[in-house]
C-alpha cells in the first residue's frame, strides 16, 4: 500500500507537467519531438505517454501523432504556434493506438489532411467503440465517435508529401507492431520517424505480428539513418545500435515460444515461462510481457 501511494504521487506529478506548457526538443533541424514518460496510460496521465511531434517545412507543418488525449493535442498545437507561424497541413497517424491518435481532434479544421496506413481506417472502425469505452474507464477521458478521426488519405505503399522545400516519404509497413504501422522519412535531415516500430527502455508491445516485426527490423537494420525517432524512448543517433535491445527481446520470444510449441506446451505455461531473462532490461515489463507472449504464441501456433 505504501508503495502504491508513492507511485500515485509520482504519477500525479508527471500528470501536472503534461498539462502545463508542452516541452518539445528539436532533434534535427525543423524536427520537434515531445518525449513521453514510460508509464502505463492511466487516469493521471490521461494516456499522454507516447513520443509525438511535428516537422516544419517552408510552407507548412506536418504533425506526427497528435497525442494521447485531446488536451495533449491542443498543447501540441500551442507548442507548434510558439515555434512557427506556418499552418499545419498534415496530421500523420503512425498507427491506431490511443496514445498516438487521441489528440487528432485538436487539428481537425479546414486545410488539414489526415494521413494513415491503408489499414488504419479499418482498425479505427473495429476498435473505436472499445477504445471510447476504455478511455472513460481507464483514462478518465470522455470521448465520442467524433474523436476517432479516420485518415483522409490512405498510404498503400509509399506516399511523398511536400511541406515546402521538404519532402517526407511515408511508408506503409507490413504487419509488425500493429497491422497499420506507417513510417515517416525526412530526406533533408536523413531522419526516420519509426514511432512504435521502435521502443527503447519501455518494453516493446506486440499488437500485430512478432515475425512481421522482426522482418521489418531486419530490413531497416541494413539501412543508414542519421537520426531515428522511436515511439517510446530517447532519440537514436547511432543506428542500427539503437535497435539491438528490442531485437534481442523479440528474438528471445520467437525462439522460446517456438520451443514451447514444439514440446506441446500450452499458452498458459508459455505465459509463465517464456522471456523472463529479459525482465531486468525493460520498464513496464510486468505490464506488457505476458500479453506479448500471448499474442506471439497465438501467431506462432499457425506457422
Amino acid at each position, binding site marked *: 500500500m505504501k508503495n502504491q501511494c508513492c507511485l500515485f504521487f509520482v504519477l500525479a506529478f508527471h500528470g501536472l507537467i503534461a498539462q502545463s506548457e508542452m516541452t518539445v526538443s528539436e532533434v534535427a533541424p525543423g524536427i520537434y519531438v515531445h518525449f513521453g514518460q514510460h508509464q502505463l496510460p492511466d487516469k493521471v496521465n490521461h494516456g499522454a505517454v507516447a513520443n509525438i511531434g511535428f516537422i516544419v517545412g517552408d510552407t507548412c507543418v506536418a504533425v506526427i501523432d497528435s497525442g494521447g488525449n485531446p488536451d495533449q493535442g491542443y498543447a501540441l498545437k500551442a507548442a507548434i504556434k510558439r515555434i512557427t507561424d506556418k499552418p499545419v497541413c498534415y496530421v500523420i497517424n503512425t498507427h491506431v493506438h490511443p496514445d498516438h491518435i487521441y489528440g487528432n481532434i485538436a487539428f481537425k479544421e479546414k486545410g488539414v489532411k489526415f494521413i494513415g496506413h491503408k489499414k488504419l*481506417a479499418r482498425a479505427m472502425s473495429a476498435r473505436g467503440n472499445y477504445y471510447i469505452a476504455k478511455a472513460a474507464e481507464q483514462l478518465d477521458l470522455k470521448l465520442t465517435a467524433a474523436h476517432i478521426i479516420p485518415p483522409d488519405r490512405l498510404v498503400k505503399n509509399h506516399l511523398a508529401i511536400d511541406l515546402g522545400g521538404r519532402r517526407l516519404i511515408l511508408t506503409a509497413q507490413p504487419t509488425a507492431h500493429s*497491422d497499420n504501422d506507417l513510417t515517416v522519412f525526412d530526406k533533408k535531415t536523413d531522419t526516420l520517424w519509426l514511432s512504435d516500430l521502435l521502443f527503447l527502455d519501455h518494453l516493446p508491445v506486440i499488437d500485430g505480428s512478432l515475425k512481421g516485426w522482426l522482418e521489418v527490423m531486419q530490413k531497416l537494420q541494413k539501412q543508414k539513418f542519421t537520426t531515428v525517432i522511436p515511439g517510446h524512448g530517447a532519440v537514436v543517433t547511432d543506428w542500427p545500435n539503437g535497435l539491438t535491445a528490442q531485437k534481442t527481446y523479440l528474438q528471445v520470444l520467437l525462439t522460446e515460444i517456438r520451443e514451447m510449441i514444439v514440446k506441446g506446451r500450452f499458452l498458459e505455461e508459455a505465459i509463465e515461462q517464456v522471456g523472463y531473462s529479459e525482465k531486468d532490461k525493460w520498464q513496464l515489463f510486468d505490464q506488457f510481457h505476458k500479453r506479448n507472449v500471448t499474442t506471439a504464441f497465438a501467431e506462432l501456433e499457425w506457422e
Partner: protein
Amino acid sequence: MNIYLQKITLLLLLISPLLVSAAIDESSWKNAIKKQYYAGKTIQESNDIIEIKAPYRAEAPALVPLKIISKIAQTKNRYIKKIVVFVDKNPFPFVGEFEFTPESGKADLAMRIRVNTYSYVRAIAEMNDGKLYMSKKIVKASGGCSAPLGADLDAAMKRLGQMKFKLGNAVKEGKPAMAQLLISHPNITGMQMDQVTRFIKKSHFVDQLKVTFDDKPVLTAKIDIAISSDPNFRFYFMPKKGGVLKAEFTDVFCETPTSRDVCTKGKSYSSSYMIKP
C-alpha cells in the same frame, strides 16, 4: 438503509477503493442472463463439480485463457451433460454451450475467450439428473490499446477453415486422453464503429462445433463471438484402440453483434485425425 449505515457505506467507499472493486456487481447475471437462460431454475454455487480457472488480470483481452476443471468422473450413471459459459459484462455475454457424454472421459475444457471489461466469468454445469452447479471468477481485462479482436485479421482470414489436432504423447486405451483442437477463423465480432462500417460488415463467427471419435460424439458445442479469433479448445475423449478423431464446424454471419435474430448460415468445414492403435 438508515443514516448510520449510509455513513458507514460512504466511509467505506472513500477509504477503500480495493473493497469497492472487489464487490463487483452481478446485476447483469441476476437481472438478465439468469432469467434468459435459467428461468425458474435453482443453481447451486459450488466448486465441487466444476471449477473455473482464469487469470485475475487478463493481459490480452482478446485472448484470455480459460480452463474448466471437472471434479467428478464421467460415468454412465452420473456425468456432466452440459457446461455453459458466460462473461457477464461482454456485449454478448453467452460464450458457449458445451455438451459432454460419458464417452468424453472427463468434462474438462480449456478455451480462449474475449473479455471486454472487469467482469465475472461463470460456468454452469448441468448434470445428467438436471441439477445445476455454478463456478465463477472475476477477470479484469487490462490493456486499453489492444482491442478484443485478433492482432492480425488478414492472416486469420487467409487461413480461414484450417484445423489442427494436437494430442498429448500419452494416449492410452481406456484412459481419458487430452486433445487440443486449433481452428483458424477470425471470429469477427462485428462490434465496429457505425461511422466507418464499410470495412467490417457483420459478425462472422464459428457457431457450431462437433468433435467425434469413431462417429461417437465427444464434444458438441454452440459457440459465439466471445471465443477468441483462431478458436482453440482442449478437451478429453476415450481412445479405445485406434480410431478417427473428427472435428466439424460451421460459421455464421449475423447482422448485429448483440442479437442472433437475423443471421445467415456460412460454410461447413471438417478435419479428421487418425489415431493408430
